[in-house]
């Protein structure tokens, strides 16, 4: 008769669970309690204020930035995976893209922001090059510290990340399927609509979530490009580093609690969508 729990597994699981409990759950629960007890007594005022005025703007901006860079990065990353799938030559391109994506997906942060400043910042070399052929980036309204500037920089790690997520799914599409579909009289468009895309959807959704979370939480890049930007991570910094005005700390707790709830909700939403589409694809 097998026991419900295996002794050896329990022995190694306990330190791990204690670790996650202490460093993830304790701080999260701690801040949740503080968010609901502004000024020491229970109340919703901090949670409410966290969604008003500049903080509301910060949430809207962060959501828009995360969604835009996730969708653009997702679509371009998927297109990259699809175009490499059918590409036979040059041979090195496929393996280089694989390795490069693994690298670039991790290259967020401080150095990445510097790279773009050197390229398309106001003193950037590409800015100057374009200027000489008669196109003024600055005049066109583009700036690295604004919304589209951040999107362009974030795509640098978003596209490779989506490529990494999609590559196994895209590689799993068998040529025999498209042949079978065409023998049965399906057009290539029909094949994509009814066979290929449904098979890719679960991975694509998972990838979108990864990209969304990735850019919503991105701090270093935005900090370098525009430390005063109205974005949630930078607002948290202000509240945390700013002088300890009574109530401001409570506001930081509340903003973070909203952020965690938002990310958790998107994780659950994607999990549900994935399950549904997986069923649909296998039906």
């Amino acid at each position, binding site marked *: 008769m097998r026991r419900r*729990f295996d002794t*050896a*597994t329990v022995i*190694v*699981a306990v330190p*791990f669970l204690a*670790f*996650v409990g202490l*460093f*993830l759950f304790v*701080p*999260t629960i*701690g*801040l949740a309690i503080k968010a609901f007890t502004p000024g020491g007594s229970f109340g919703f005022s901090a949670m409410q204020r966290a969604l008003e005025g500049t903080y509301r703007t910060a949430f809207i901006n962060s959501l828009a930035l995360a969604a835009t860079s996730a969708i653009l990065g997702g679509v371009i990353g998927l*297109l*990259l995976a699809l*175009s490499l799938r*059918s590409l036979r030559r040059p041979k090195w391109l496929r393996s280089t893209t694989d390795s490069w994506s*693994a690298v670039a*997906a*991790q*290259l*967020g*942060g*401080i*150095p*990445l922001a*510097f*790279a*773009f400043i*050197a*390229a398309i910042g106001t*003193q*950037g*070399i590409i800015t*100057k090059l374009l200027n000489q052929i008669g196109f003024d980036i600055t005049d066109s309204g583009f700036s690295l510290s604004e919304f589209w500037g951040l999107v362009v920089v974030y795509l*640098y790690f978003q*596209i490779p990340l989506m490529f*990494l*997520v999609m*590559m*196994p799914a895209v590689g799993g599409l068998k040529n025999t399927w498209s042949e079978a579909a065409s023998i049965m009289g399906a057009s290539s468009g029909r094949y994509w609509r009814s066979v290929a895309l449904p098979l890719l959807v679960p*991975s694509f959704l998972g*990838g979108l979530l*990864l990209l969304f*979370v990735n850019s*919503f939480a991105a*701090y*270093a890049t935005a*900090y370098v490009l525009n430390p005063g930007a109205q974005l949630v*991570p930078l607002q*948290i*910094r202000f509240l*945390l*580093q700013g002088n300890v005005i009574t109530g401001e700390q409570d506001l*930081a*707790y509340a903003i*973070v609690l909203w*952020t965690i709830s938002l990310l958790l909700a998107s*994780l659950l939403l994607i999990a549900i969508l994935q399950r549904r589409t997986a069923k649909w694809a296998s039906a």
Partner: protein
Amino acid sequence: MGVGMKVLRAIFLILLGLYFFVPLLAMARFAFQSVPVVLLTPEKLLEGWSISGLLEVFGNPEFQRATLISLQLMVLAIVLTLVLLLPLAALVEIRAPQLRTLMTAITLLPWVVPPVALVVGVAATFRNTVPWFLASPYSLVPFYVLWALPFSYRALDAGLRSIGARTLYEAARVMGASTFTIIVRVIIPNMIGAIIAASVLTAALVLGEFAFAALLLKETLPTFMAEFQRSEPRAGMALALAVMLLTALIIWIGVRALRKRGMDLQAAGV
């Protein structure tokens, strides 16, 4: 595929290639050429190149201290990741597969609480109860292990499945080996690829993490870099490029190690 599509595909790939390559090139020029962009003309393209700025950074004692801390954090985070996860992932796979769903869910949670969020919770709890803990830069280690979890656990889990750990376990079991012997002498030696992958992903995270370290006022390589670039733009740029290349090299080593074993370095198993 029609000719038109092929042309479109080629244009798409070339544009993407430029997008990924040009910023690095611009960075290298800014870092190693002492001619300001305003004064740069085609004739001056080859003038003023030198790596003296970077060499100067290497001699900077503050840089050395920050780098040493970051390297220590990296090694400690990798060791802690493997100690906590490797036996657990192996045992869950071979003896308690019913726990797999739970492990997948738990290891995804750090995603939901990113560094800039958790730092607030840490300030709310640890700062009042155990202030000595946050005084040391080594207090960053557990948190770095935590954020690497979604990647490191999935790398180890994928490794376990690709070597058919359960079959290996049963075979060794039939021959009379104890669970401990099986994990140490059969499973782990077969998992070098996955162990390298988990380590490489953890290392990349430690070398790049900025928010948590900066908000807890710890001097690591990324926080030093952000500060340094303000006073020394050129040398700062050179340093950032060097760190980027170092990260790239570490990950590339991981990719090579995996490919030799017929695996790919993948994003968290989504």
